[in-house]
């Protein structure tokens, strides 16, 4: 199978969906992949730096017969649009009693680890999980990036695609053609029997590397990638923990009210899964600081393979 980078896979997803359905349009201050060349300036709109306007325009255009993709670019840029995200996008279908659908896709890049410092480094998807009303995808591989983004664009609800920037250059096999990954389905990326590691975004590949290393020590690690945060595939997570009895969650965000916190809660509040636990749940998360600039500090602030391995060993001791 041919290999694409994560970013190429995302661009391919958008291009395929725009070819398939002329109602798909995209708005952003700038674009990767040069879609305006194929689709023209009516459907590919270079916009002023107006995230609030763009976010709401996505809703207005979506209810008026189009399927907009609004790209906030860096996730930190969309915070100025919190009214349109929280008070409008996440509530709009319900508060109007289901009168209309809003098939809009919001895209953004997340994560740190590249020296971009506090206001250009963040993994805030748990804030969106909390809202209800928004679906959320968090692809960790190029194939999942293509498949999930295509599904998101076809979903008739507002979906937010959090695209990990540290994965942009990572290559992987990507099926050609209409490759769709359904929302709400987690994937066991590596099968194992001693401990479940639920990993998010960049840390899926990091956890797989740790699993490979620990196999040499006789520890069998199962790595599960939720892929979609809302709706969360709770059953797959619980089934894995019932099998292994141990859970480590790796999330680039700080631990408080993180996706890791939510995953821990939904796993242990199930009676059968709780009874299967042989050790307390471990979370490997970022430090509770804005992501710092200097490499020594940034590395200290974010999860790494050593800490993932350490957490796994703690569940086994």
């Amino acid at each position, binding site marked *: 199978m041919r290999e694409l980078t994560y970013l190429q896979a995302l661009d391919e997803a958008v291009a395929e969906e725009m070819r398939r359905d002329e109602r798909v*349009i995209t708005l952003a201050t700038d674009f990767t992949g040069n879609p305006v060349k194929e689709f023209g300036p*009516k*459907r590919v*709109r270079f*916009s*002023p730096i*107006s995230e*609030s*306007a*763009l*976010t*709401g*325009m*996505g*809703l*207005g*255009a*979506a*209810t*008026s*017969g*189009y399927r*907009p993709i609004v790209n906030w670019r860096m996730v930190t840029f969309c915070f*100025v649009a919190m*009214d*349109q995200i929280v*008070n*409008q996008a996440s509530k*709009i*279908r*319900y*508060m*109007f*009693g*289901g*009168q*209309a*659908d*809003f*098939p809009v896709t919001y895209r953004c890049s997340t994560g740190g680890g590249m020296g971009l410092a506090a206001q250009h480094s963040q993994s805030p998807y748990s804030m969106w999980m909390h809202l*209800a*009303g928004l*679906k959320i995808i968090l692809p960790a591989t190029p194939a999942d990036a293509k498949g999930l983004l295509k599904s998101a664009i076809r979903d*008739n*609800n507002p979906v937010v695609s959090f695209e990990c920037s540290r994965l942009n250059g990572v290559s992987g096999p990507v099926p050609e053609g209409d490759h769709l990954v359904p929302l709400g389905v987690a994937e066991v990326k590596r099968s194992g029997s001693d401990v479940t590691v639920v990993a998010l975004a960049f840390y899926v590949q990091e956890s797989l590397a740790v699993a490979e290393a620990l196999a040499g020590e006789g520890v069998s690690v199962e790595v599960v990638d939720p892929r979609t945060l809302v709706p969360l595939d709770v059953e797959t997570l619980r089934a894995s923990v019932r099998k292994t009895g141990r859970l480590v969650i790796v999330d680039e965000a700080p631990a408080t009210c993180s996706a890791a916190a939510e995953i821990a809660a939904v796993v242990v509040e199930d009676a059968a899964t709780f009874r299967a636990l042989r050790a307390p749940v471990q979370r490997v998360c970022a430090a509770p600081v804005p992501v710092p600039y200097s490499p020594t500090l940034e590395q200290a602030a974010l999860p790494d393979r050593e800490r993932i391995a350490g957490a796994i060993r703690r569940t086994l001791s």
Partner: protein
Amino acid sequence: MQSETPDFVAMLEQMILIREFDERALELRKAGKIYGTVHPYVGQEAVAVGVCANLTPDDRVTSTHRGHGHCIAKGADVKRMMAELFGRVDGYCKGKGGSMHIADFSIGMLGANGIVGGGLPIATGAALAAQLDGKGRVAVCFFGDGAVSEGEFHEALNISGVWKLPIVFVCENNQYAANNAVAVQHPHVDLATHAAPYGMPGITVDGNDVLAVHEATRSAVGRARAGEGPTLMECKTYRWYFHAMRHAPPPETRPAAEIAQWKARDPIARFKTDLETRGLIDNATLAAIERRVATRLQEAVAFAEASPFPDPKDLLVDMYAG
């Protein structure tokens, strides 16, 4: 309505219906029969009616927390509006929205919005859709003088101007944003001055003269339909009552003389006089209008009271589309 000469008598009836609907909503709220807040539109009827008389169901509007008038003027069913205020299943939003989320998407009324400025980006998106459709449709955005202070106003006007979107921005300057007078909120109280920097004409209109509103809107909508881009219309008007009430009406803080001055320019009284002068109505017509409006409201309340409350088992319904 698309005809060159609008149906003046129908417009008058619609203005009266809007006023009586909100007067009734205030009574119902005081009696505890409806919940939450009521933001009365009384006094501003000429704006909603004058603007919407230029629109078809294919044109889309967004509204504000003070949205009952826009909803009625756009053609909504007052029975379903009333049922929504009563929180019943036959309300437009199945009881899930209430007064501030009154909407009828089937006729292009994309909702009252509880956030000041919240509707501007949404209307701008509807305008983008209209531009892409290429069928001459327009979007209209209602907002108040308060929203002109919000970032969303500036973002929406800027992008509409640069993309020449088919949208009419209707600023209902009722002289107050909640309890703050327009002069303490803005360096220039003539808000139409915001238009030029955003690449569109700015018109100031007597918002209490329904025919002036109608005429100004006709030309703005005409520009938009012809692909000439957006317009900012500032309609100077006044709300007779307070910003909002919950259990009880709050004390009036505005000067009595100011209120009296604006009431003397009652848009409904002025229009009645105008139509009488033109020989289009007489006492009999007026009496018939008032009877019809009273009957419609009576039926609306009866419809609402007969509709059941939503079942809590339906709490999670309508979160997501299939």
